[in-house]
């Protein structure tokens, strides 16, 4: 009853004309940032913080605007992934795998609509979770130490074969390449530069976005140049609407991925990218070979897109309940709130109810706004595909390059992107999957640093990695995930045998 009363008051805040306008603005800007490859939510939020000061917005309005950009970006990220095989956000890399194949089959419309519906359901569920379980789940964020993170990363790798495609060894090689990339840069433990060859720009390590755009987008242009001969399979406009049957068959995926995304989103440092990887690979495991994940299945779009939206809601939990920023974006939001005189933390629900409940209510509104905004856009975006590819793909690539350069002002990024474009091109020619490289890059860094933190803390005792219930549970999950293809294959074979009889 208390929650309902508080939520009602929250809607009072969220539905005030100014705040309603700010939700709209935030969602619109967020979608735009999401659609444009190269510009991530972190730069979007950082650039709009001064605006909230300049407009002298009260803290609840500022937070409503900034959060709108944050979760709005998660909606938009899928668009270019699906249409052009160019991930709009780091958390939409996995979406490209099935999304773009669907587009080539003339199902870009249903894929985009599925992304919007999945995002809406997951976004709404995660606000519900934030509202009812927030303070409780905050403890979950704190329980994750180096050992638990390490086990989580091992679990992430154990699902790798789901990304493998036809050849497991090629996928392993691609992951190894990603792991190697993760070691480039300043060694966090000793402060010494590794594999930088004296190039200062490499000291911060490989930027995920730069590698992703290079591998996917630049190589896409190269492949296109080569295959421009008529008859090459291109993404087509095709069907626009998502059928009820397709939607219903994906509902389970959406719900499961929402839970996974939400729980991983709460963890500081893990974030939406890992959530989308884990949700996708888990679905592939659960659905088995009958589902055609990896070859163009709507559930392959639903899983990562639901997970990254749920993660955005989850990431707000440590921020609001503990005053701990779990990601770069929430760190900026924390800074903005403190500047406005609101100190997030355990008492915030009592001391600033209008901020917390206003935000929660605004997120319900925002998710509905995003759905209403994105569904009509599906038709528009799909029609983009009737623009000749020789114009569309280079144009989007140019926008990505401008985006990356405008954010970092570092020409080296562009060079690096070109190099990864060549690498991506060669990998495609040799039939190596691209996504495992990014999995290796994103998981590898966290895996290494957390293993080394664990070893420092425990004075080198390997048993420390298995010393908590959460860690042990994650190790078991990893083991199960490694063995499951064998088990599923055996069951599948038996089933097939019966049919033959």
């Amino acid at each position, binding site marked *: 009853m208390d929650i309902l009363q508080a939520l009602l008051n929250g809607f009072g805040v969220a539905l005030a004309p100014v705040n309603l306008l700010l939700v709209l603005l935030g969602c619109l800007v967020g979608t735009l940032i999401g659609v444009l490859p190269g510009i991530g939510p972190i730069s979007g939020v950082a650039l709009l*913080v001064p605006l909230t000061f300049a407009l002298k917005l009260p803290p609840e309005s500022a937070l409503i605007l900034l959060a709108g950009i944050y979760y709005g970006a998660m909606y938009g990220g899928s668009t270019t992934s699906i249409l052009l095989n160019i991930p709009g956000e780091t958390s939409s890399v996995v979406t490209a795998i099935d999304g773009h194949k669907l587009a080539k089959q003339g199902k870009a419309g249903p894929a985009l609509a599925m992304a919007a519906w999945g995002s809406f359901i997951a976004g709404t569920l995660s606000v519900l979770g934030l509202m009812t379980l927030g303070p409780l789940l905050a403890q979950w*964020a704190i329980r994750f130490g180096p050992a638990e993170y390490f086990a989580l990363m091992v679990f992430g790798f154990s699902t790798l074969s789901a990304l493998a495609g036809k050849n497991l060894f090629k996928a392993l090689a691609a992951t190894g390449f990603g792991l190697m990339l993760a070691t480039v840069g300043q060694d*966090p433990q000793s402060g010494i530069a590794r594999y930088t060859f004296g190039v200062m720009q490499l*000291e911060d390590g490989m930027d995920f976005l730069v590698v992703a755009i290079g591998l996917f987008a630049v190589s896409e242009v190269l492949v296109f140049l080569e295959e421009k001969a008529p008859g090459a399979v291109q993404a087509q406009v095709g069907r626009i609407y998502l059928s009820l049957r397709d939607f219903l068959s994906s509902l389970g995926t959406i719900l499961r991925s929402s839970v996974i995304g939400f729980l991983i989103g709460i963890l500081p440092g893990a974030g939406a990218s890992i959530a989308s990887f884990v949700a996708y690979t888990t679905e592939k495991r659960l659905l088995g070979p009958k589902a055609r994940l990896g070859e163009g299945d709507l559930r392959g779009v639903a899983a990562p897109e639901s997970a990254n939206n749920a993660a955005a809601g989850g990431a707000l939990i440590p921020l609001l309940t503990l005053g701990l920023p779990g990601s770069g974006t929430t760190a900026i939001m924390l*800074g903005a709130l403190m500047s406005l005189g609101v100190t997030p933390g355990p008492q915030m629900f009592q001391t600033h109810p209008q901020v917390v409940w206003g935000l929660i209510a605004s997120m319900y509104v925002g998710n509905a706004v995003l759905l209403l905004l994105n569904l009509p856009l599906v038709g528009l975006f799909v029609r983009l595909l009737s623009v000749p590819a020789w114009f569309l793909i280079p144009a989007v690539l140019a926008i990505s390059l401008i985006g990356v350069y405008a*954010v970092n*002002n570092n020409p080296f990024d562009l060079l690096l992107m070109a190099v990864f474009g060549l690498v991506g091109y060669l990998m495609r020619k040799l039939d190596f999957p691209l996504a495992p490289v990014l999995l290796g890059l994103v998981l590898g860094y966290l895996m290494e640093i957390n293993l080394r933190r664990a070893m420092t803390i425990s004075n080198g005792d390997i048993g420390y990695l298995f010393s908590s219930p959460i860690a042990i549970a994650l190790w078991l999950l990893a083991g199960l995930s490694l063995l499951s293809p064998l088990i599923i294959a055996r069951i599948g074979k038996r089933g097939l045998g019966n049919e033959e009889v």
Partner: protein
Amino acid sequence: MRWLITALLVALAGSGLAQFTPRNPECIAPAGAGGGWDFTCRSVAQVMLDLKLIPQPMKVTNVTGGGGGVAYANVVTQRNNDPNLIVAASPATTVRLAQGQYSRFTERDVRWLGAIAADFGLVAVKADAPWRTMQELVASWKADPAKIAVGGGSAVGGQDHMKVLLLGRAAGIEPRNIKYVPFDGGGEALTSLLGGFIQVFAGDASELRAQVQAGTVRVLGVMAPRRLEGVYANIPTLRELGYNVEWVVWRGFYAPKNMPTEAYEFWVRALRQVERSPEWARVREQNALGKFSMLGAEFQVFIDRQVNQFRSLSRELGIIR
């Protein structure tokens, strides 16, 4: 006639000196949006505009890479006489210069303008930790350094690590035996402290306000020359406790080495006016920054001394050879 020309020339020169106004002023934040340098640029740009010290808004450019090294190299090699450019800096800059991390460039390759605010280092433990005072912590630490893991938001050799080593040195703990666990930023280190994975947190006063207000951490000492205000008013300085350690995270700027003198003087004057303005006092207060003012020639001397000090310290603590 002659005296008239001379007078005109003098007047012109004089007015030129007094009336340098930047065109398209720019502030480079040598890291991504949302960090400390980005904040320094954006807040000073806003206050300068509010005070009408600059005729048009100052553009803020984020130049990422090499912990500020890419921006440093860029300024030295390509914009060495730009009169309209200032670059955000902090001890993170001087630590890296001292440790030779900006390739061949040194602190002498730019002109230091000044610092106009400061954050201060501190040491904290969880609220329910067994140590009520710094002396108690140091006693257990000395007894068995392997049992105390200290975490901070910087890599080994970075600011948070240096703070720990300085405290250890002042307390008589062999630097080699100190367990330092690096995290990606203070927020992650703090999460780990609350989870009980590390025992001690080394960070800055501005990072910890929310937790201090919530009562989830206990600050054992601040690394400031005198006590801080607000939530920290009751926390002793390390110097009071007998440990000769200070860590002043000044927020300031450098400029291109060959910037014309009148431009250099313009920027020093503008920063001084910002520092003295009530607008700046409000920015400092909102962001939990302390008062700190050191400008022009005085700052140049300060930087020279700080880099030398960091250099010998890094050598002594085994961070560089």
